[in-house]
């Protein structure tokens, strides 16, 4: 077992142990924080596929986080109001079943990522960053000005969505659902990076000409990665809506894009468990430093600067050393 694997397993166990301990000590707030870490980590795992493995610096992943959230929020609020979502050409009812909400969120985010990616990937470098940002901001302003689902005030969902056989309102149960999904997307990430597609994606990042000269279009490979990336971040958005039982346009804002990016960079770009390490550190800082000073983000900025300057592998790089061969 490599050192990185050991670090990864330790991180996963820590994320599992903290809320279980909190359950026994009766600190539901800590369980909620842990759930938040798991959800943010999922969002980061999504971005890491585009940013880390594909080298696609998306500054617009809030679009997918928000779309996933609104997919959950709108479906649930329609179901709770007993109003069908669509009446023509056929009737579609809202729902509060997670097992329906998740695939819907995945499909919507996948479709959005296909459109955004297809247009953004025609550019590169700084322009790619700006175009992805612009798309997310477009959706942000749309959400603010669309009164049907709360506009600027956001949309409250009065119950948490249901999962067959589980009481999702119980904090530790909801944490378990999020944790299981985190492990699932991490597992998918492992498979993806070692697969044929992962090899092609990695080559597209390192040297697109290499891919072209063996007869593969880098565009197709990168677009596929962008879609997968958007879908996973969208799933995190749907869970986040359920965690807060509230969605608001803030989910679409560039702050959110920046935060997801910070999770990935803090933890280690292109490192499997980087997003989890980054999200955990972010939440820890927010609550430890946030308790001391309201300028905690200044300290976060300093930390980010130090990591970018001196520890390119992020937290995982510090704990597990550089990446091995391949």
């Amino acid at each position, binding site marked *: 077992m490599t050192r990185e694997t050991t670090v990864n397993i330790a991180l996963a166990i820590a994320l599992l142990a903290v809320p279980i301990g909190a359950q026994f000590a009766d600190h539901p707030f800590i369980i909620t924080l842990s759930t938040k870490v798991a959800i943010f980590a999922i969002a980061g795992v999504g971005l890491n596929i585009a940013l880390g493995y594909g080298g696609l610096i998306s500054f617009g992943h809030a679009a997918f986080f928000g779309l996933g959230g609104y997919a959950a929020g709108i479906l649930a609020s329609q179901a709770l109001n007993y109003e069908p979502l669509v009446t023509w050409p056929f009737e579609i009812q809202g729902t509060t079943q997670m097992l329906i909400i998740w695939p819907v969120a995945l499909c919507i985010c996948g479709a959005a990522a296909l459109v955004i990616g297809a247009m953004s990937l025609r550019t590169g470098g700084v322009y790619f960053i700006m175009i992805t940002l612009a798309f997310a901001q477009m959706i942000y302003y749309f959400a603010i000005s669309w009164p049907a689902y709360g506009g600027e005030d956001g949309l409250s969902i009065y119950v948490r969505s249901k999962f067959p056989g589980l009481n999702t309102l119980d904090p530790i149960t909801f944490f378990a659902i999020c944790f299981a999904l985190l492990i699932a997307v991490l597992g998918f990430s492992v498979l993806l990076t070692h697969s044929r597609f992962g090899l092609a994606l990695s080559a597209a990042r390192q040297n697109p000409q290499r891919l*072209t000269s063996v*007869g*593969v279009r880098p565009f197709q490979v990168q677009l596929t990665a962008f879609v997968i990336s958007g879908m996973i971040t969208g799933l995190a958005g749907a869970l986040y809506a359920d965690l807060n039982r509230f969605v608001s346009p803030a989910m679409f804002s560039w702050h959110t894009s920046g935060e997801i990016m910070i999770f990935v960079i803090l933890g280690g770009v292109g490192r499997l468990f980087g997003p989890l390490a980054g999200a955990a550190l972010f939440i820890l800082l927010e609550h430890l430093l946030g308790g001391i000073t309201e300028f905690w983000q200044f300290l976060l900025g300093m930390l980010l600067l130090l990591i970018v300057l001196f520890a390119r592998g992020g937290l995982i790089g510090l704990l597990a050393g550089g990446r091995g061969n391949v």
Partner: protein
Amino acid sequence: MSSAILEVEDLSKRFGALMASDHVTLDLRPGEIHALIGPNGAGKSTLIKQIVGELHHDAGTIRFNGRRIDDLDAEARAKMGLARTFQVSSLAPEISALHNVLLAVQAVEGSVFRFFKPVIRDKKLVAAAMDNLMRVGLQDRAMVRTADLSHGERRQLEMAIALALKPKVFLLDEPMAGMGPDGSQQLTKFLARLRDEAPILLVEHDMDAVFALADRISVLVYGQIIATGSVDEIRNSKKVRSAYLGEELA
């Protein structure tokens, strides 16, 4: 002429005032090594780039197996069987030598859009990649990160990748560049046999290698082909001597 695999006809490419390719006509026949020589800046690499589709030509046609490929992009041309090596190695530096070859093998043997099975566990794929590494003598360095390979080894790796593509034509842009005398000699022997697999368009400055290998030679000067012929014809051509070979053969 119809027996040629690759036919370049009247190809022109202009960069501003510079004619990089000036009505270039050239063909490549089965089983031959056709060397393209010329002084620096004559437009040799530019010609290769137009043939593989990295640059688009302004006028003229390129035929491959009798079919016009002018409107195809670089990926489509590579898929049809045009394999090229680069003047300056163009590899994926962070992955192993083996993975670089696997990338080519998987592109040839079906799709890259498979998301679950680890590529390294695909025995057929790995065996094919190892075969090609062995052919260039790089089998012991298979798991080394490409960035850690020596210059010569990277050139060998480029060749292994080209082999893995099972091409119908090899376009080799200065494969000897930066190789020591031993390396050049080995590569010369290797290329001499390679022509039986697929014909080779060879851009090269190493005249010993060119004269040893070439069935035909074309001389490119300022974007124009000034002569095409056998090794002896080119050696004895006054025009070529004055334009290019000059003192080197005097």
